[in-house]
Protein backbone atom coordinates (compact mmCIF):
# COMPACT_ATOMS: atom_id res chain seq x y z
CA UNK A 1 0.00 0.00 0.00
CA UNK A 2 1.19 3.52 -0.75
CA UNK A 3 0.21 6.54 1.19
CA UNK A 4 0.01 10.06 0.00
CA UNK A 5 2.19 12.28 2.18
CA UNK A 6 0.34 15.52 1.59
CA UNK A 7 -2.78 17.24 2.70
CA UNK A 8 -5.68 16.69 0.35
CA UNK A 9 -8.99 18.43 0.27
CA UNK A 10 -11.92 18.29 -2.07
CA UNK A 11 -15.57 19.24 -1.60
CA UNK A 12 -16.43 15.80 -0.26
CA UNK A 13 -13.52 14.92 1.94
CA UNK A 14 -10.33 16.17 3.45
CA UNK A 15 -7.43 14.22 4.82
CA UNK A 16 -5.14 15.42 7.58
CA UNK A 17 -1.87 13.94 8.71
CA UNK A 18 -1.57 12.65 12.25
CA UNK A 19 2.19 12.80 12.61
CA UNK A 20 2.41 9.02 12.25
CA UNK A 21 3.52 7.88 8.82
CA UNK A 22 0.58 6.56 6.79
CA UNK A 23 -2.00 7.29 9.50
CA UNK A 24 -4.59 9.90 8.54
CA UNK A 25 -7.69 11.61 9.78
CA UNK A 26 -10.34 11.47 7.09
CA UNK A 27 -13.12 14.01 7.22
CA UNK A 28 -16.21 13.51 5.13
CA UNK A 29 -19.06 15.84 4.41
CA UNK A 30 -22.44 14.94 5.81
CA UNK A 31 -25.12 15.52 3.21
CA UNK A 32 -28.66 16.46 4.00
CA UNK A 33 -30.95 13.99 2.37
CA UNK A 34 -34.67 14.46 2.73
CA UNK A 35 -35.34 14.79 6.42
CA UNK A 36 -32.18 13.02 7.48
CA UNK A 37 -28.48 12.98 6.74
CA UNK A 38 -26.18 10.73 4.80
CA UNK A 39 -22.56 10.27 5.84
CA UNK A 40 -20.14 8.81 3.35
CA UNK A 41 -17.93 6.48 5.33
CA UNK A 42 -16.04 4.71 2.63
CA UNK A 43 -15.97 5.45 -1.06
CA UNK A 44 -13.17 3.58 -2.77
CA UNK A 45 -12.68 6.00 -5.66
CA UNK A 46 -12.37 9.07 -3.44
CA UNK A 47 -10.14 7.36 -0.88
CA UNK A 48 -7.90 6.08 -3.64
CA UNK A 49 -7.07 9.67 -4.55
CA UNK A 50 -5.24 10.00 -1.26
CA UNK A 51 -3.60 6.61 -1.50
CA UNK A 52 -5.96 4.82 0.86
CA UNK A 53 -6.68 1.81 -1.26
CA UNK A 54 -7.93 -1.43 0.19
CA UNK A 55 -10.71 -3.92 -0.35
CA UNK A 56 -13.01 -4.21 2.63
CA UNK A 57 -12.54 -7.70 4.06
CA UNK A 58 -14.40 -7.29 7.31
CA UNK A 59 -16.87 -4.85 8.79
CA UNK A 60 -17.02 -4.88 12.58
CA UNK A 61 -19.28 -3.02 14.94
CA UNK A 62 -18.71 -2.52 18.64
CA UNK A 63 -20.73 -0.72 21.27
CA UNK A 64 -19.19 0.29 24.56
CA UNK A 65 -20.49 1.65 27.83
CA UNK A 66 -19.10 4.84 29.30
CA UNK A 67 -15.71 4.23 30.87
CA UNK A 68 -14.83 1.19 28.74
CA UNK A 69 -11.37 0.95 27.24
CA UNK A 70 -10.59 -1.54 24.47
CA UNK A 71 -7.04 -2.03 23.29
CA UNK A 72 -4.33 -1.73 22.32
CA UNK A 73 -4.83 -4.25 19.55
CA UNK A 74 -3.20 -5.19 16.30
CA UNK A 75 -2.89 -8.20 14.06
CA UNK A 76 0.68 -9.45 13.69
CA UNK A 77 2.53 -9.78 10.41
CA UNK A 78 2.12 -11.38 7.94
CA UNK A 79 -1.61 -10.94 8.59
CA UNK A 80 -1.51 -7.36 9.71
CA UNK A 81 -4.43 -5.28 8.50
CA UNK A 82 -5.10 -1.64 7.82
CA UNK A 83 -8.41 -0.23 8.98
CA UNK A 84 -10.68 2.71 8.68
CA UNK A 85 -12.39 3.48 11.98
CA UNK A 86 -15.52 5.61 12.40
CA UNK A 87 -17.55 6.57 15.47
CA UNK A 88 -21.26 6.29 14.64
CA UNK A 89 -22.69 7.37 17.99
CA UNK A 90 -21.39 8.54 21.34
CA UNK A 91 -17.86 9.78 21.67
CA UNK A 92 -14.51 8.09 22.15
CA UNK A 93 -10.90 8.95 22.84
CA UNK A 94 -9.03 7.11 20.12
CA UNK A 95 -5.36 6.17 20.33
CA UNK A 96 -2.74 4.57 18.12
CA UNK A 97 0.92 3.74 18.55
CA UNK A 98 3.39 3.03 15.78
CA UNK A 99 4.98 -0.42 16.26
CA UNK A 100 6.97 -0.53 13.01
CA UNK A 101 10.68 -0.49 13.88
CA UNK A 102 11.53 0.73 10.39
CA UNK A 103 9.10 3.63 10.54
CA UNK A 104 10.37 7.16 11.04
CA UNK A 105 7.65 7.56 13.65
CA UNK A 106 8.36 4.29 15.50
CA UNK A 107 6.76 4.30 18.98
CA UNK A 108 5.12 7.63 18.36
CA UNK A 109 1.54 7.88 19.59
CA UNK A 110 -1.43 9.84 18.28
CA UNK A 111 -4.73 10.46 20.04
CA UNK A 112 -7.92 12.16 18.98
CA UNK A 113 -11.61 12.39 19.78
CA UNK A 114 -14.03 10.66 17.45
CA UNK A 115 -17.69 11.45 17.80
CA UNK A 116 -20.97 10.39 16.24
CA UNK A 117 -21.72 14.06 15.72
CA UNK A 118 -18.67 14.79 13.62
CA UNK A 119 -17.70 12.87 10.56
CA UNK A 120 -14.03 12.33 11.24
CA UNK A 121 -12.60 8.88 10.79
CA UNK A 122 -9.11 7.60 11.35
CA UNK A 123 -7.23 5.49 8.83
CA UNK A 124 -4.81 3.18 10.62
CA UNK A 125 -2.17 1.48 8.48
CA UNK A 126 -0.68 -1.94 9.13
CA UNK A 127 1.78 -2.10 12.01
CA UNK A 128 0.01 0.23 14.44
CA UNK A 129 -1.71 -0.79 17.66
CA UNK A 130 -5.12 0.77 18.24
CA UNK A 131 -7.40 1.31 21.19
CA UNK A 132 -10.14 3.62 22.38
CA UNK A 133 -11.90 4.82 25.50
CA UNK A 134 -15.66 5.51 25.54
CA UNK A 135 -16.67 8.88 26.97
CA UNK A 136 -20.37 8.05 26.66
CA UNK A 137 -22.70 5.09 26.96
CA UNK A 138 -23.47 3.29 23.76
CA UNK A 139 -20.45 4.62 21.94
CA UNK A 140 -20.53 2.78 18.64
CA UNK A 141 -17.41 2.15 16.61
CA UNK A 142 -17.33 0.79 13.09
CA UNK A 143 -14.21 -0.81 11.64
CA UNK A 144 -13.61 -1.52 7.98
CA UNK A 145 -10.53 -3.73 7.66
CA UNK A 146 -8.21 -4.64 4.79
CA UNK A 147 -7.83 -8.26 5.89
CA UNK A 148 -9.70 -10.96 7.73
CA UNK A 149 -9.32 -11.82 11.39
CA UNK A 150 -6.68 -14.39 12.22
CA UNK A 151 -6.84 -15.77 15.75
CA UNK A 152 -3.21 -16.81 15.54
CA UNK A 153 -2.09 -13.28 14.73
CA UNK A 154 -4.50 -11.43 16.98
CA UNK A 155 -2.29 -9.57 19.46
CA UNK A 156 -1.98 -6.52 21.64
CA UNK A 157 0.02 -4.55 24.12
CA UNK A 158 -1.04 -3.21 27.48
CA UNK A 159 -3.07 -0.01 27.22
CA UNK A 160 -1.02 1.81 29.80
CA UNK A 161 2.44 0.92 28.54
CA UNK A 162 2.81 3.05 25.42
CA UNK A 163 2.91 6.55 26.89
CA UNK A 164 -0.68 7.44 25.97
CA UNK A 165 -2.37 9.90 28.29
CA UNK A 166 -5.75 8.25 28.70
CA UNK A 167 -8.62 10.36 30.06
CA UNK A 168 -9.34 7.81 32.81
CA UNK A 169 -6.73 5.99 34.96
CA UNK A 170 -9.23 3.27 35.93
CA UNK A 171 -11.16 2.27 32.84
CA UNK A 172 -13.49 -0.71 32.52
CA UNK A 173 -11.43 -3.29 30.72
CA UNK A 174 -11.52 -6.98 29.84
CA UNK A 175 -9.30 -9.44 31.63
CA UNK A 176 -7.60 -10.24 28.36
CA UNK A 177 -6.74 -6.59 27.71
CA UNK A 178 -5.59 -6.09 31.29
CA UNK A 179 -3.19 -9.03 30.89
CA UNK A 180 -1.67 -7.94 27.60
CA UNK A 181 2.10 -7.73 27.51
CA UNK A 182 3.67 -4.34 28.14
CA UNK A 183 5.25 -2.50 25.23
CA UNK A 184 8.75 -2.75 26.65
CA UNK A 185 8.45 -6.54 27.00
CA UNK A 186 6.73 -7.60 23.83
CA UNK A 187 8.31 -9.31 20.85
CA UNK A 188 7.84 -7.08 17.88
CA UNK A 189 6.34 -8.93 14.91
CA UNK A 190 6.81 -6.03 12.52
Amino acid at each position, binding site marked *: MQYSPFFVSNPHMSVRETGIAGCFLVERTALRN*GSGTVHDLY*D*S*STLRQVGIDFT*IHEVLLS*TSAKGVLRGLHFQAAPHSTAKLVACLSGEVFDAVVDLRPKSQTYLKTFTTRLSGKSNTMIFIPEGLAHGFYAYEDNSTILYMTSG*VFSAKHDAGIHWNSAGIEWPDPNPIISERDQNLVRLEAFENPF
Partner: protein
Amino acid sequence: MFEFLPTTIEGCYQIRPRVLADHRGTFSKLFHFNTFSEKGLVHQFSDVDYLSSPRNTLRGLHFHPDDGEYALLLTCASGSVLHVAVDLRKNSKTYGTVYSVTLESPTADTLYIPAGVAHGFLSVADDTTLLTLASHRTSVRSGIHWQSIDFDWPVANPVVSEEDQRLMTLSEYQRQS
Protein backbone atom coordinates in the same frame (compact mmCIF):
# COMPACT_ATOMS: atom_id res chain seq x y z
CA MET B 1 -19.85 -16.86 12.01
CA PHE B 2 -23.18 -15.93 10.44
CA GLU B 3 -26.57 -17.52 10.03
CA PHE B 4 -27.94 -16.94 6.56
CA LEU B 5 -31.70 -16.96 6.96
CA PRO B 6 -33.65 -17.26 3.71
CA THR B 7 -36.41 -14.78 2.99
CA THR B 8 -39.44 -15.11 0.74
CA ILE B 9 -37.39 -13.53 -2.07
CA GLU B 10 -34.88 -15.74 -3.83
CA GLY B 11 -31.29 -14.65 -3.23
CA CYS B 12 -32.28 -12.20 -0.52
CA TYR B 13 -31.05 -13.08 2.97
CA GLN B 14 -31.42 -11.96 6.51
CA ILE B 15 -27.94 -12.44 7.91
CA ARG B 16 -27.57 -12.93 11.62
CA PRO B 17 -24.10 -12.27 12.99
CA ARG B 18 -22.86 -13.65 16.26
CA VAL B 19 -23.01 -10.83 18.78
CA LEU B 20 -20.48 -11.11 21.59
CA ALA B 21 -21.75 -9.28 24.65
CA ASP B 22 -20.08 -8.68 28.00
CA HIS B 23 -19.97 -6.03 30.70
CA ARG B 24 -18.24 -3.63 28.30
CA GLY B 25 -20.78 -3.75 25.50
CA THR B 26 -21.17 -5.69 22.30
CA PHE B 27 -19.01 -6.75 19.41
CA SER B 28 -20.19 -8.17 16.11
CA LYS B 29 -18.88 -8.90 12.67
CA LEU B 30 -21.25 -7.64 10.00
CA PHE B 31 -19.31 -8.72 6.95
CA HIS B 32 -16.61 -11.25 6.18
CA PHE B 33 -15.24 -11.29 2.64
CA ASN B 34 -14.32 -15.01 2.51
CA THR B 35 -17.60 -16.25 3.98
CA PHE B 36 -19.67 -14.23 1.52
CA SER B 37 -17.45 -15.35 -1.33
CA GLU B 38 -17.76 -19.05 -0.40
CA LYS B 39 -21.50 -18.64 -0.18
CA GLY B 40 -21.56 -17.34 -3.76
CA LEU B 41 -22.74 -13.91 -2.67
CA VAL B 42 -21.51 -10.55 -3.86
CA HIS B 43 -18.52 -9.72 -1.66
CA GLN B 44 -16.96 -6.58 -3.15
CA PHE B 45 -18.30 -3.57 -1.31
CA SER B 46 -16.76 -0.26 -2.25
CA ASP B 47 -19.27 2.23 -0.92
CA VAL B 48 -20.24 2.50 2.74
CA ASP B 49 -22.77 5.06 3.92
CA TYR B 50 -24.45 5.87 7.16
CA LEU B 51 -27.98 7.29 7.06
CA SER B 52 -29.72 9.03 9.95
CA SER B 53 -33.47 9.29 9.67
CA PRO B 54 -36.00 10.72 12.11
CA ARG B 55 -38.99 8.54 12.93
CA ASN B 56 -41.47 8.05 10.06
CA THR B 57 -38.98 8.81 7.32
CA LEU B 58 -39.45 6.59 4.30
CA ARG B 59 -36.78 6.14 1.64
CA GLY B 60 -37.20 4.14 -1.53
CA LEU B 61 -38.04 1.95 -3.19
CA HIS B 62 -34.73 1.89 -5.04
CA PHE B 63 -33.08 -0.78 -7.07
CA HIS B 64 -30.07 -1.48 -9.21
CA PRO B 65 -30.42 -3.24 -12.60
CA ASP B 66 -29.97 -6.98 -12.38
CA ASP B 67 -26.35 -7.37 -13.43
CA GLY B 68 -25.46 -10.04 -10.88
CA GLU B 69 -22.52 -8.10 -9.50
CA TYR B 70 -24.33 -5.67 -7.32
CA ALA B 71 -25.72 -6.11 -3.85
CA LEU B 72 -26.67 -4.03 -0.87
CA LEU B 73 -26.03 -4.90 2.78
CA LEU B 74 -28.14 -3.06 5.33
CA THR B 75 -27.64 -2.99 9.08
CA CYS B 76 -29.65 -0.99 11.58
CA ALA B 77 -27.03 0.59 13.84
CA SER B 78 -29.53 2.34 16.13
CA GLY B 79 -33.27 2.59 16.39
CA SER B 80 -35.52 0.38 14.32
CA VAL B 81 -36.14 -0.03 10.60
CA LEU B 82 -38.98 -1.58 8.64
CA HIS B 83 -37.44 -2.95 5.45
CA VAL B 84 -39.59 -3.66 2.41
CA ALA B 85 -38.26 -5.42 -0.68
CA VAL B 86 -39.93 -6.30 -3.98
CA ASP B 87 -38.54 -8.80 -6.47
CA LEU B 88 -38.46 -7.16 -9.93
CA ARG B 89 -36.44 -9.87 -11.68
CA LYS B 90 -38.65 -11.38 -14.34
CA ASN B 91 -36.63 -14.60 -14.43
CA SER B 92 -36.86 -15.07 -10.66
CA LYS B 93 -39.05 -17.76 -9.09
CA THR B 94 -40.22 -15.17 -6.62
CA TYR B 95 -40.91 -12.39 -9.16
CA GLY B 96 -43.36 -9.88 -7.75
CA THR B 97 -42.99 -11.09 -4.15
CA VAL B 98 -43.01 -8.42 -1.47
CA TYR B 99 -40.92 -9.17 1.61
CA SER B 100 -40.83 -7.10 4.76
CA VAL B 101 -38.99 -7.36 8.04
CA THR B 102 -38.35 -5.07 10.99
CA LEU B 103 -34.74 -5.05 12.10
CA GLU B 104 -33.55 -3.18 15.11
CA SER B 105 -30.39 -2.35 16.93
CA PRO B 106 -28.57 -3.94 18.71
CA THR B 107 -29.24 -7.35 17.14
CA ALA B 108 -27.14 -6.27 14.14
CA ASP B 109 -29.12 -8.50 11.77
CA THR B 110 -28.22 -7.52 8.24
CA LEU B 111 -30.32 -7.65 5.11
CA TYR B 112 -28.69 -8.72 1.83
CA ILE B 113 -30.50 -7.35 -1.22
CA PRO B 114 -29.36 -8.53 -4.65
CA ALA B 115 -29.57 -6.51 -7.86
CA GLY B 116 -33.02 -6.43 -9.41
CA VAL B 117 -34.77 -6.32 -6.05
CA ALA B 118 -36.22 -2.95 -5.07
CA HIS B 119 -35.73 -1.87 -1.49
CA GLY B 120 -37.21 0.79 0.73
CA PHE B 121 -37.31 1.41 4.43
CA LEU B 122 -39.26 3.26 7.04
CA SER B 123 -37.64 4.39 10.28
CA VAL B 124 -39.97 3.30 13.04
CA ALA B 125 -38.05 4.71 16.02
CA ASP B 126 -36.41 8.01 16.89
CA ASP B 127 -32.76 8.44 15.98
CA THR B 128 -32.73 5.60 13.55
CA THR B 129 -29.49 5.01 11.70
CA LEU B 130 -28.86 2.58 8.93
CA LEU B 131 -25.47 1.41 7.76
CA THR B 132 -25.37 0.53 4.08
CA LEU B 133 -22.68 -1.28 2.12
CA ALA B 134 -23.06 -1.16 -1.64
CA SER B 135 -21.01 -2.89 -4.31
CA HIS B 136 -20.40 0.38 -6.02
CA ARG B 137 -21.62 3.88 -6.11
CA THR B 138 -24.41 4.19 -8.57
CA SER B 139 -25.31 7.52 -10.08
CA VAL B 140 -28.20 6.10 -12.06
CA ARG B 141 -30.62 4.82 -9.51
CA SER B 142 -33.98 3.50 -10.49
CA GLY B 143 -36.95 3.31 -8.25
CA ILE B 144 -40.64 2.69 -7.92
CA HIS B 145 -43.17 4.58 -5.85
CA TRP B 146 -43.61 3.33 -2.31
CA GLN B 147 -47.40 3.37 -2.51
CA SER B 148 -47.58 1.40 -5.74
CA ILE B 149 -46.70 -1.99 -4.30
CA ASP B 150 -48.92 -4.47 -2.53
CA PHE B 151 -47.91 -3.57 1.00
CA ASP B 152 -49.73 -2.04 3.96
CA TRP B 153 -47.35 0.57 5.29
CA PRO B 154 -47.99 1.16 9.00
CA VAL B 155 -48.14 4.94 8.49
CA ALA B 156 -50.26 6.98 6.11
CA ASN B 157 -48.08 10.07 5.82
CA PRO B 158 -44.41 9.27 6.15
CA VAL B 159 -41.78 11.87 5.33
CA VAL B 160 -40.72 11.11 1.75
CA SER B 161 -38.27 13.09 -0.36
CA GLU B 162 -39.56 14.86 -3.47
CA GLU B 163 -37.35 12.66 -5.56
CA ASP B 164 -38.87 9.49 -4.14
CA GLN B 165 -42.38 10.94 -4.34
CA ARG B 166 -41.90 11.36 -8.11
CA LEU B 167 -40.85 7.76 -8.78
CA MET B 168 -42.88 5.73 -11.27
CA THR B 169 -45.37 3.17 -10.10
CA LEU B 170 -44.69 -0.55 -10.10
CA SER B 171 -47.15 -1.13 -12.96
CA GLU B 172 -45.56 1.68 -15.02
CA TYR B 173 -42.21 0.02 -14.49
CA GLN B 174 -43.56 -3.41 -15.40
CA ARG B 175 -45.11 -2.06 -18.62
CA GLN B 176 -41.87 -0.50 -19.79
CA SER B 177 -39.52 -3.35 -18.88
